């Protein structure tokens, strides 16, 4: 507390909310001076004021009406703040400006600083997940520092990406959002409809996420220390066989296959070694050559998941200083974040600094600076890939459990040492994780300098220059003593280096004019232009022929075997404008327009124009509505329509480019000659995807806004879809990029805020529920309407896009069940070719009813997109204690469990899901739970089929946090103004019937043609953290 000057006296008191509980963090200022303080955790304050009867104290807090109180001669002054009755009235950031929530006519969802502060977050994904209707957040990987996958109102694009545009402090197009320290975030706005997003023109079709960081404010300099520490574990383990169970499965399946071939399966009558090699049981699984007894030495074997997973610490420290005077305001933060990954050797560290400063140069000119340098580094494990490319997760799941983790000589054995035909040559997954060194370091700076000039009342000119520079460096080393590509060691050691420099600059100039006529007609005009250019310079170098493994960098390589590099650029030139008009705040109109020119598109379609219009009606302001007011406290109707674009197609895509196709000529060993052939076709008509979106919505409040409801219905049709579409191979190409179709997304969004208990009894309880129902349909595909089949890594033709169906459909053979008797087989359609079907084999659907099962019987097996996504947050507050629970989930989608192509085959060679083996058909009396018999030669289970498709619905308790605001009695002696301790659990519980780690993933991340595939993805963690926040 500030020591009172001689002429001053002290006033103290308590600030409460309308329920009577103390409000922490309320700003208390002496009007007309620089003096100010904020209330402590219990709402108490103490301030020195001039001993003058005219002294006025101003109490202000976000979301509440400010109150001015004349001090008079009182020394104790208790104040009760009222919630801003225009409860939706906080300021929201929209493109190139701000609006009162009350006046917004578009669909904008926002997360305020208060919401973020309630539940501390370790990443942007957590700030967004489950919080906003219409916004789906997927963590495509659990790897520390990994990217997230955000969808606003479904997927409108199949070839140009579905990621929203990220705008950070006015800088559009920030790509590495993981570099943002989530504790720096003041608010997040998501612009969902065309009216809100059209001002971003050719980049607005997928929605816009606007992130605003903490700004300084006028008043005493305050400091905040945030720190937390915790640990993470894998959310769930996958249930696979142990060594003895695996041996039993191996023996049973070999016996079944041998019995199919007419062999005798009793080893006591016919020794194992006398079988043909392909039918022999691996001797190590048997006690001896002439018994059916499993080798008892196998035991449980190695739990490979335990080998690669660990309890991993997570730590964060951050110091924030904010303050300023009437002319200059600042916020400075410095943070350190360290997250070890739950897979050994993976991790992420971030060191970040952010400075936001603005100063009034003259009475009419303001200068502002945002500067955010961040350094981060990632330790990468090769997780998301198949075992044949050393993917750690899939290898750990499928490698045989009898192999020891480590041999006495210190080496790490792999499956290749089995040396028997039929076994896949896998490398020890623990060795891959720990010995295959991959790391990336990145230095990011975003900076912006802006100048505001207010020459006349209501007129603001702003010019700003922003830059985003990302310098990164990847280094990887694959040592010689690990096998690779299915081969035993030694392999050829390999180092790779990939330095990259991204530089992006943007210049934005806007002119804003507001005018109020006759006190009723309020007008705003915005005019602007923007110029932006990005270049990425990157280089790739691969070195081999290392003399030892001691120097794991390209420089130590005996030979550089690959190198490439280049500069890839795009540029964007834009003009935009906005007009808003309202009559007495009751009738609201907004028009937006943007015209964009882009380097990415063909000469015939260089420029695009994206207009939108919206209207709002504050129904409650009408005289005839006054009678409902006690019940209905707010009611606004909104409607909007407009255009948005999507230009995410990569650079130079319309040009025909030649690629190297070299050859060898000359006698003997020959010499290299250069060859060049086109890799793509010229397409001068390449243009944006344009989406036309209509939206109607209601914002309503009831019972003095104790209940707030927002409902939106939207309908979005994206046309001129850009797709690298498969073409007949007779063209000489596999795919050609074209504008080929239309997709419609439509749906409902509900968002409900409820103050269930106001806290009169001391307990306060609020609930926030959001529900999003998106539907999706392909309306047209190209001239011929031909469907598009596409595959996922190693899975041939797993997805189909066809007219009349939603995107994200899975495609393959439908399995109806398992044949129980020969009679059932005889009565069913048969395979055109292939091995004999026997009882216990899968029964495939004869979709076209021609009596023959073949590729033309493949059909739709499921869909990757949920019918419903939801989030439910409950906050409880009792005196200083706060409990917050976030539940989040998906309903009605399916997942392709790609690991099933190894782990649900009932064939030896890979470890199997326990559910698949225990549920296998054994006999007509013991028909299992829908999985085929062990070791059968079931037709076509190597191709995409319905066994690989699982229910993707889940319900997850996303976070539970318990916080306690430390009492003043404890803080005061320490000289602290506020303090909070909390415990936070992330993902404490997931309800899902899925066999893999996490149903909410997509192996190919942002893949648009083949979403919803799990294929050895880095699993999600359960984290427990303990935190402390101190204000001083």
């Amino acid at each position, binding site marked *: 507390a500030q020591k009172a000057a001689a002429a001053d006296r002290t006033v103290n008191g308590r600030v409460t909310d309308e329920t009577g509980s103390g409000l922490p963090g309320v700003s208390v200022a002496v009007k007309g001076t620089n003096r100010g303080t904020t209330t402590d955790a219990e709402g108490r304050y103490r301030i020195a004021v001039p001993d003058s009867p005219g002294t006025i104290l101003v109490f202000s807090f976000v979301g509440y009406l400010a109150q001015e109180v004349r001090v008079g001669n009182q020394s104790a002054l208790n104040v009760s703040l009222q919630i801003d009755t225009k409860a939706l009235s906080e300021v929201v950031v929209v493109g190139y400006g701000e609006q009162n929530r009350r006046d917004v006519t578009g669909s904008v969802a926002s997360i305020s600083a208060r919401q973020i502060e309630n539940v501390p977050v370790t990443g942007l994904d957590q700030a967004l997940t489950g919080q906003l209707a219409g916004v789906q957040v997927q963590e495509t990987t659990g790897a520390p520092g990994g990217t997230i996958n955000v969808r606003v109102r479904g997927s409108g694009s199949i070839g140009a990406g579905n990621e929203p545009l990220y705008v950070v402090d006015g800088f559009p197009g920030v790509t590495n959002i993981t570099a943002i320290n989530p504790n720096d975030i003041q608010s997040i706005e998501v612009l969902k409809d065309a009216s809100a997003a059209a001002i971003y023109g050719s980049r607005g079709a997928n929605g816009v996420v606007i992130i605003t960081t903490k700004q300084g404010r006028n008043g005493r300099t305050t400091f905040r220390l945030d720190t937390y520490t915790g640990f993470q574990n894998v959310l769930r383990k996958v249930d696979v066989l142990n060594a003895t169970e695996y041996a039993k499965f191996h023996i049973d399946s070999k016996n079944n296959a041998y019995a199919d071939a007419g062999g005798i399966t009793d080893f006591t009558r016919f020794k194992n070694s006398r079988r043909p090699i392909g039918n022999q049981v691996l001797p190590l699984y048997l006690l001896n050559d002439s018994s059916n007894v499993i080798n008892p030495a196998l035991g449980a074997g190695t739990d490979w998941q335990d080998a690669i997973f660990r309890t991993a610490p997570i730590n964060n420290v951050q110091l924030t200083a904010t303050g300023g005077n009437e002319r200059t305001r600042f916020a400075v933060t410095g943070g350190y974040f360290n997250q070890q990954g739950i897979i050994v050797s993976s991790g992420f560290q971030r060191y970040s600094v952010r400075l936001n400063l603005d100063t009034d140069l003259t009475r009419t000119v303001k200068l502002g600076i945002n500067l955010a340098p961040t350094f981060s580094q990632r330790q990468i494990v090769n997780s998301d890939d198949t075992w044949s490319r050393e993917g750690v997760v899939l290898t750990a799941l499928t490698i045989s459990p009898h192999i020891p983790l480590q041999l006495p000589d210190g080496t790490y054995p792999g499956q290749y040492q089995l*040396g028997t035909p039929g076994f*896949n*040559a896998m490398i020890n997954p623990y060795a891959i994780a720990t010995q295959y060194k991959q790391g990336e370091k990145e230095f990011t700076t975003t900076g912006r300098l802006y100048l505001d000039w207010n020459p006349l009342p209501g007129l603001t000119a702003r010019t700003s220059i922003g830059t985003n520079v990302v310098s990164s460096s990847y280094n990887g080393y694959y040592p010689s003593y690990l*096998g690779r*590509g*299915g*081969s035993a060691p030694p*392999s*050829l050691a390999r180092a790779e280096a990939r330095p990259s420099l991204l530089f992006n600059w943007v210049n934005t100039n806007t002119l804003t004019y507001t005018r109020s006529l006759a006190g009723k007609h309020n007008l705003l005009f915005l005019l602007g232009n923007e110029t932006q250019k990005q270049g990425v310079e990157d280089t790739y170098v691969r070195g*081999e*022929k290392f003399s030892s493994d001691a120097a794991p960098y390209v420089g130590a390589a005996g030979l550089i*075997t690959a190198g490439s590099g280049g*500069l*890839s*650029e795009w*540029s964007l030139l834009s003009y935009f404008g906005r007009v808003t008009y309202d009559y007495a705040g009751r009738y609201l109109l907004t028009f937006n327009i943007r015209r964009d*020119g*882009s*380097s990415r598109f063909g000469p015939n379609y*260089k420029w695009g124009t994206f207009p939108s219009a919206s209207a709002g009606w504050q129904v409650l302001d009408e005289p005839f509505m006054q009678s409902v007011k006690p019940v209905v406290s707010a009611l606004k109707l909104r409607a909007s329509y407009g255009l948005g674009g999507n230009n995410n197609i990569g*650079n*130079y895509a319309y*040009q025909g480019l*030649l*690629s190297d*196709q*070299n*050859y*060898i*000529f*000359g*006698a*003997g060993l020959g010499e290299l*000659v*250069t*060859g*060049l*052939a086109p890799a793509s*076709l*010229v397409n001068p008509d390449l243009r944006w995807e344009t989406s036309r979106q209509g939206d109607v919505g209601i914002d309503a409040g009831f019972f003095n806004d104790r209940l707030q409801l927002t409902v939106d219905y939207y309908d979005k049709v994206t046309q001129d879809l850009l797709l690298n*579409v*498969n*073409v*007949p*191979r*007779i*063209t*000489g190409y596999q795919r*050609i990029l*074209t504008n080929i179709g239309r997709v419609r997304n439509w749906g409902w969004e509900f968002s409900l805020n409820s103050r269930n208990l106001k806290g009169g009894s001391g307990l306060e309880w609020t609930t926030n529920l959001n529900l999003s129902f998106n539907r999706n349909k392909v309306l047209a595909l190209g001239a*011929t309407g*031909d469907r598009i*089949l596409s595959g996922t890594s190693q899975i041939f*033709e797993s997805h189909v896009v066809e007219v009349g169906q939603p995107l994200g459909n899975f495609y393959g053979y439908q399995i109806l069940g398992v044949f129980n008797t020969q009679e059932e087989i005889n009565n069913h359609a048969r395979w*055109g*070719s*292939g*091995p004999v079907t026997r009882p216990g084999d899968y029964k495939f659907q004869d979709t076209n009813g021609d009596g023959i099962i*073949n*590729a033309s019987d493949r059909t739709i097996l499921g869909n990757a997109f949920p019918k419903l996504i939801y989030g439910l947050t409950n906050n409880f507050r009792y005196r200083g204690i706060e409990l917050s629970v976030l539940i989040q989930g998906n309903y009605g989608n399916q997942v392709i469990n790609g690991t099933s192509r190894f782990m649900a085959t009932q064939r030896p060679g890979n470890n199997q899901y326990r559910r698949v083996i225990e549920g296998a058909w054994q006999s007509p009396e013991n028909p299992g739970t829908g999985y085929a018999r062990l070791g059968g030669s079931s037709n076509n289970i190597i191709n995409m089929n319905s066994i690989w498709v699982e229910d993707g619905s889940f319900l997850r308790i996303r976070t539970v946090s318990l916080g306690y605001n430390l009492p003043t009695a404890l803080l005061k002696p320490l000289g602290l103004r506020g303090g909070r301790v909390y415990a936070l659990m992330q993902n404490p519980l997931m309800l899902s019937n899925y066999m893999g780690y996490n149903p909410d993933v997509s192996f190919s991340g942002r893949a648009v043609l083949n979403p919803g595939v799990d294929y050895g993805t880095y699993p999600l963690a359960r984290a427990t953290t303990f935190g402390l926040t101190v204000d001083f």
Partner: protein
Amino acid sequence: CSESFLDLQPNTQVSTNTFYQSASDFRTAVNAAYAALQADGLYGSVYIHFSEVPADNAGVQNPNGAGGIAQNEFDQFVVTPVNPSLLSFYSASYAAIQRCNIVLGRIEASAVTPALKNQFTGETRFIRGLMYFNLVRFFGGVPLVLNEINAAEEGYTYTRASADDVYKQVLADLTDAETKLPVSYTGADIGRATSGAAKALLGKVYLTQKNYAQAVVKLKEVIDLTGTGGRVYDLAPRYIDNFDPARSNNSGHKESLFEIQYKTGGIGEGSGYTNGSAPPNGPLTLTGVGNGNGQFIWPTVQVFNAFPRSDPRRSANLDSLIINGQLQRYVKKYLQPVYGSIPFNQADSDMNFPVLRFADVLLMYAEALNETNSGPNAVAYDAINRVRRRAHGVTTSAFDIPAGLNKAAFALAVENERRLELAFEGHRWPDLVRTDRAIPVMTALGFRVQPHQLIFPIPQAEIDINPGKMTQNPGY
């Protein structure tokens, strides 16, 4: 200013707008057509599976392994239209054809000298002819794309041409190539297609069409072809010289007519034959680098037994060893260490793939003569015995085939000689199909082969994408 701000050109790649002007541009474009032949879908891997795995010479190393599943369908005559090898081969063939079509469509209007115009035209027509010959043999009639494709829509306009029309085009391409190509090259051009290669391929096409009279004519032209140093082609002194990478492209012999060329060294030009024919878990000395995987070619017991123990070609082609207690047979001729050098890396060896060599020409000549003359004449005997004498390293008649064979017996002798001499070089299955022997030979081994399986199905993806126009082969 604004337009130039938006006019960004690629910095690291050449755009097609500015290319295809000079002779050097066209030479690079022709080189790219040759490079297409190295693809996995063609001679890099799938060609050998198409041409050997269905027949009795080759099986599948690991039917459940990564690459084995697709191969196994060919081995067991259960090929389905979604087998990935089909699409891979089909795509790679048409990629090569497109590269040829680009050159052929653009070179006439260019300022390239007439001599080079002839050479480049001849080379690309040779490659295009080879591609269509492969396609028609494996798939029957296929779409005849003879012009550069410039827009996606064009790809949907083609339907399957009849097999006869494809053969007509193959003959037209090769006949033009034969006249335009030089007899030989020097220096850094050695290895390009020659008129001799075009004639030999023409001979093979005629033989496949059972046009034996024309086959005799063309093959005799190859045998008699004379250049500055006398006869252009002859058998190499030793059988294994054909596979020694240091002797490829007729370095030290005259047997090679056309081969697919590879070079080790981590420059993206190596072949995978070495590791792909070595057995898994074998000693490192077999490959020189890394493990074998047996996925390129894997011999059957029958082919092992087909070689008499006295025939040196047995040990040149094949070997066996015990690995982890089990006998493993493998193809030896593509292992680079056999020839005294080691590859740089896995799937990066120096081993070329022989497409046409003089022994093949002589055996085709013997076969054609036997058919035209209702039995073997002395010239036919000479041709086959010339191959056998070289194989055994003798000049005497000690290993000659018996005299006095009738037409049928001689035909069988030629068939067997081709099996041994040209083992694992991509001849066995087309030979059996061409001579109507595929079904009897494979049936005798216990396989159930139906007549429709003598050609493979059109890849399903190609039908799915253009269902109105593309039709499946009967039986699939």
